[in-house]
């Protein structure tokens, strides 16, 4: 079949959904949508349609990135623009079918926005919403819009056109185009992609491999999962283009086992691409052949490192080795190999579809194009976003993310996961690109962005990341294996109130040894969260060490709970709820907490009725409160007496 025929068929299929005679219902059912209850919504939709005998196309789409409003459901009613509904429950889904499909009331109260040129009274345009307005969706343009298990939808939206264009070019020219686009590796290090491809192409040998690194292990990062779940063909197209340019016959997708849905969607995508002869022997009758295998990871963070990843594909323990030789000279099975991240491959596909100059028109001088970020933590609108390089944290956190939850104060943002750093609020106006983040002591990383407010303790966060890297260290290099353990021990002491003077300097010294003495990125970057948090929040470390005080009231060993004698109403709720039996009191008595028995579980704080608000959580200074219960009636007198 000619590609033109495939395309014609695909567009016809897509038009059936978009401009067909029957309604279409699309439910965002990525992992995040499912966690919010999308499967129950889907079941309710199918049941309601069946009961009412309504003919409709029901499909599962990936995540559009508005995770805070999930589950999301879009309805396309013939002759009307597509409407996206937020926080849909099974009951709301059934109601919408009745109100909108049957009675023609689009229910603006339940809608998030409309998609398309036409408008509906009372519903804003989806892409005019603050979360989407300043985004530039290049890599994510299909996510949440197309059925990821339907290759026709991908093709109808411009998919595989980049491959067709590539097959008409000389491999060297393809590499030249990728170079001209300025694309840099989206896995974190930011190495120029075209140059990397060229190294591998020029490396001697007939047998070559390419690998897609989908071992997204950074806690707090989910860009690759979302892209694989929402638009797997874009990654596959990028890989086929790369294989042609490099001269590889075989490729692997190494995807972590924690992403079962991404793996399932990839398997379907592979099969469909083979059926359309876009993959396999003699791709589109060009004489070029390329095969892809999927390898499921087995749970080791270090396998995100390229040499460890290749060892894992070969069936070995995933331990990194020293470079050189670089994978471009000697990689998988000792053959020249090129590894890129999921987002890099998908970007390559778009670049070949729309051209290098168009792509390079976005971004900054040295960081071209766009970058996806997973926005999570203490921010109002969490989700997956895509912005051009050069956007500022303020744009991302305040405009797109809607600011900090519950109106609290923005304290810091962690980029680059356990390899990155904790940047304070002062960096909020710095344009984000590879170089600005590196000079601030953090890294771009793969794009995890965790927002922290005044209730987050940066020392606790540094301890959290160290406990992760210490656990995930493969153990090959002693500075990493033992250095991270020593650093973790010190951080645990500090957060447990056992910190000593000189601990900060010791941490800095150890950090340097771990950085210098480790073979791979894991060890070389593991100390970053500690170093940046010391650099920008040294006073918090000092409060923990010198004053045994946790300013954010997070570190359990350093906080205590008290009952404000002026506010306690003697209702006995906390007394009955305390699992440690640490609260003394009685009806109409001012309660007191026995500090010796208190386990600091915080139950009393949660159960004390908000209108009383009598439980005080504090760190450092000990407030003067009675040690024995006193009758509430005496309260006024006592105060009077004191005056």
């Amino acid at each position, binding site marked *: 079949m000619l590609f033109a025929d495939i395309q014609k068929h695909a567009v016809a299929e897509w038009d059936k959904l978009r401009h067909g005679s029957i309604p279409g219902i699309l439910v965002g059912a990525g*992992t995040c949508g499912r*966690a919010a209850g999308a499967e129950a919504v889907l079941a309710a939709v199918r049941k309601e349609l069946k009961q009412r005998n309504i003919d409709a196309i029901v499909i599962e789409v990936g995540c559009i990135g508005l995770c805070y409003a999930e589950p999301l459901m879009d309805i396309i009613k013939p002759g009307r623009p597509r409407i996206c509904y937020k926080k849909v429950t099974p009951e709301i889904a059934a109601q919408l079918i009745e109100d909108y499909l049957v009675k023609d009331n689009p229910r603006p109260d339940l809608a998030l926005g409309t998609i398309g040129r036409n408008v509906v009274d009372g519903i804003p345009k989806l892409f005019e919403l603050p979360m989407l307005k300043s985004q530039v969706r290049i890599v994510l343009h299909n996510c949440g819009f197309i059925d990821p298990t339907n290759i026709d939808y991908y093709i109808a939206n411009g998919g595989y056109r980049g491959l067709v264009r590539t097959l008409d070019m000389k491999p060297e020219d393809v590499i030249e185009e990728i170079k001209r686009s300025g694309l840099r590796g989206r896995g974190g290090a930011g190495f120029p992609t075209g140059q990397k491809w060229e190294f591998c192409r020029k490396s001697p040998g007939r047998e070559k491999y390419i690998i897609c690194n989908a071992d997204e*292990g950074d*806690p707090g990062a*989910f860009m690759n999962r979302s892209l694989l779940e929402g638009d797997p063909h874009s990654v596959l197209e990028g890989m086929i283009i790369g294989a042609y340019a490099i001269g590889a016959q075989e490729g692997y997708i190494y995807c972590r086992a924690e992403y079962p849905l991404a793996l399932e969607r990839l398997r379907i995508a592979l099969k469909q691409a083979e059926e359309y002869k876009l993959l396999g022997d003699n791709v589109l009758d060009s004489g070029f052949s390329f095969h892809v295998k999927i390898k499921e990871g087995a749970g080791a963070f270090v396998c995100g490192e390229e040499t460890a990843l290749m060892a894992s594909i*070969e069936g070995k323990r995933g331990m990194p080795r020293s470079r050189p030789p670089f994978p471009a000279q000697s990689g998988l099975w000792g053959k020249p190999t090129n590894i890129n991240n999921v987002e890099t491959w998908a970007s390559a596909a778009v670049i070949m579809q729309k051209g290098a100059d168009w792509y390079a028109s976005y971004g900054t001088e040295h960081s071209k194009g766009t970058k996806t970020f997973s926005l999570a933590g*203490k921010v109002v609108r969490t989700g997956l976003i895509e912005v051009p390089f050069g956007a500022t944290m303020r744009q991302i956190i305040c405009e797109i993310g809607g600011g900090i939850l519950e109106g609290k104060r923005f304290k810091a943002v962690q980029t680059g996961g356990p390899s990155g750093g904790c940047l304070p609020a002062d960096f909020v106006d710095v344009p984000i690109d590879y170089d600005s983040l590196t000079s601030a002591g953090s890294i771009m990383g793969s794009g995890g962005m965790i927002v922290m407010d005044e209730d987050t303790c940066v020392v606790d966060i540094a301890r959290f990341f160290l406990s992760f890297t210490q656990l995930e260290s493969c153990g090959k290099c002693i500075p990493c294996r033992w250095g991270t353990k020593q650093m973790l021990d010190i951080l645990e002491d500090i957060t447990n109130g056992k910190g000593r003077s000189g601990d900060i300097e010791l941490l800095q010294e150890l950090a340097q040894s771990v950085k210098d003495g480790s073979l791979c990125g894991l060890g070389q970057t593991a100390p970053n969260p500690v170093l940046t948090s010391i650099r920008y929040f040294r006073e918090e470390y000092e409060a923990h060490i010198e004053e045994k005080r946790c300013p954010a009231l997070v570190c359990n060993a350093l906080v205590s709970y008290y009952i404000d004698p002026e506010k306690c109403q003697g209702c006995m709720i906390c007394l009955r709820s305390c699992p440690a039996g640490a609260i003394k009191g009685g009806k109409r008595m001012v309660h007191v907490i026995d500090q010796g028995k208190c386990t600091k579980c915080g139950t009393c704080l949660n159960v004390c009725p908000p209108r009383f608000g009598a439980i005080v959580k504090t760190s450092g200074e000990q407030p003067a409160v009675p040690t024995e219960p006193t009758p509430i009636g005496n309260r006024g007198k006592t105060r009077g007496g004191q005056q």
Partner: protein
Amino acid sequence: MANSSGVRDSHPLLEGETTRQESLNEILSSYQGHKEELIPILQHVQRVFGYLPEPAMKRIAKFLKLPESTVFGVGTFYAQFKLVPTGRTIIRVCRGTACHVRGAPSVLAEAEKQLGIRAGQSTPDLAYSLEAIACFGACALAPVMLIGDKFYGRVSPAEVKELLASGQG
């Protein structure tokens, strides 16, 4: 191997129970015997048996012509592989960064309290195992918990008891 002897000795593979034997043979028959198949085979065995029984690992070593130490080394390197039987229902609490800052430690503590076991342990009747997982990538819905294959987002410690009860089925 670190199994308690009670568990190991009672394993059907050692008792020569034919159905289980066949199922291991069946698993191996779908592979060619290349060394790079080690991890997929171990994953397959764990899917069927719930963990990696010692006799199975020995058989795999023979099948792939690898030293037993290599198979054991790979089996202990990756977090996914279990060397002791796990509970029929696995409860996983995410301890990723976003979940951490939005309260995962209290969710995990509540799950430990409800099940009476610590993360990494199984209940004595092997009904449940509790695991703390690095990150599921559902960070926007933090904190996240899994009961079996089912994801639950925006979990509060107060909900844990109810979720555990509903996820039993």
